[in-house]
């Protein structure tokens, strides 16, 4: 949404300013020494902040909301995920991709597209999401110039750690874009799109 971009750019600029300051204190060539792990982790932080704040903004009694229930004339919403399923799906995919990077066993059955059916309450779903991002930070921070291009097993195939780390963020943003529409349908402006307070 309109101000989500502003937020992203602010974070980018914060990062840029930080990197610039670090560079300014050293010879110019050293300004290039921001590790891959930090770069990828910063991208994840943007997605995490926007997605978690969106999840927290939805009232618990709307967690099973799906746009089909609005019966918008002429719309086509058959079979789309509920708000809760959107969040659980992102978390589950996070676990699948990040556990592959780390070489760990996923803590949940990642074949279940929307995660465990037993996770139902808002508190439990948000914890499930936050824990997946915590694993994400561990995964991103494990990346190095040497290992980012190495293939690791995921699903039935293999791909690189760098693809998994960066595409997990992209995947979360896909569903974030949908989730903000669900919020607006319920009269809730996504936190990242609200007017920023002047400091």
């Amino acid at each position, binding site marked *: *949404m*309109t101000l989500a*971009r502003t937020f992203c750019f602010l974070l*980018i*600029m914060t*990062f*840029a*300013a930080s*990197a*610039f300051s670090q*560079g300014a204190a050293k010879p110019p060539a050293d*300004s*290039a020494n*921001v590790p*891959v792990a930090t*770069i*990828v982790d*910063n*991208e994840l932080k*943007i*997605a995490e902040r926007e997605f978690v704040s969106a999840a927290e903004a939805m009232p618990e009694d709307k967690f099973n909301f799906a*746009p089909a229930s609005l019966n*918008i004339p002429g719309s*086509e*919403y058959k079979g*789309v*995920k509920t708000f809760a399923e959107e969040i659980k*799906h992102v978390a589950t*995919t996070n676990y699948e991709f990040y556990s592959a990077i780390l070489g760990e066993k996923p803590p949940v059955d990642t074949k279940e*597209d929307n995660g465990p059916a037993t996770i139902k309450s808002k508190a439990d779903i948000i914890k499930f999401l936050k824990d997946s991002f915590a694993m994400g930070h561990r995964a991103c921070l494990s990346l190095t*110039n040497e290992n*980012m*291009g190495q*293939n690791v097993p*995921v*699903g*039935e*195939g*293999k*791909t690189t750690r760098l*693809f998994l780390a*960066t*595409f997990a*963020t*992209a*995947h979360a*943003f*896909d569903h*974030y*874009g*949908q*989730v*903000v*529409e669900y919020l*607006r*349908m*319920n*009269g*809730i*402006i996504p936190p990242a799109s609200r007017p920023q307070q002047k400091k």
Partner: protein
Amino acid sequence: MKHLKQICLLLVLTFAVTSFAQDAAKPAASPAPQPAPTIALVIDREVSIIEKQLVDAAEAMPEDKFNFTPESMKIPGSDYKTVRTFAQEVKHVATVNFMLWSPLTGEKPPVDINKGNGPDSMTSKADIVKYLKDSYALGHRAAKSMTAENVVAMVPSPFGAGQISRLFCATFAVSHAFDHYGQSVEYLRMNGIVPPASRPQN
């Protein structure tokens, strides 16, 4: 949408099979370890995934709906004040693509950035879709310029003072586009159009 993960994994598998096939073509007495792809190929694959989804979504929207915004539906209890139209969503993604990828190739963005919204004068579906496609052509050139050595190199920020890394520019453009892709598919569904990537696969 729900098929994205499957598409992603399919592409992963396709890539894995391709790599394997290349291996099989080489004379090898024993199974050789699968070669890792180049960084350029990894990033180019991400660009290709979002390009396919977003271009297909843009092409799926009829021209007379390009100025659609959910605000016009007056959904009871909703809050859609001042959100972008479908056309503005697409133009915004293309413009930010140009902003983030241009520094990687050293090219100058070809159009008026207009605070990330792209040229106001661009209004037809054909021109907007071409603008989007051209931004992805740049994305592929930018991806191909990436190496394991230069990913952490800094480039001037397209958003003002400071510098940002080449890797951030290359991959955050993909994430940013997916954010707006997710919104665009809701716009499509509000108009009775199932996004092409979410239609049943043959």
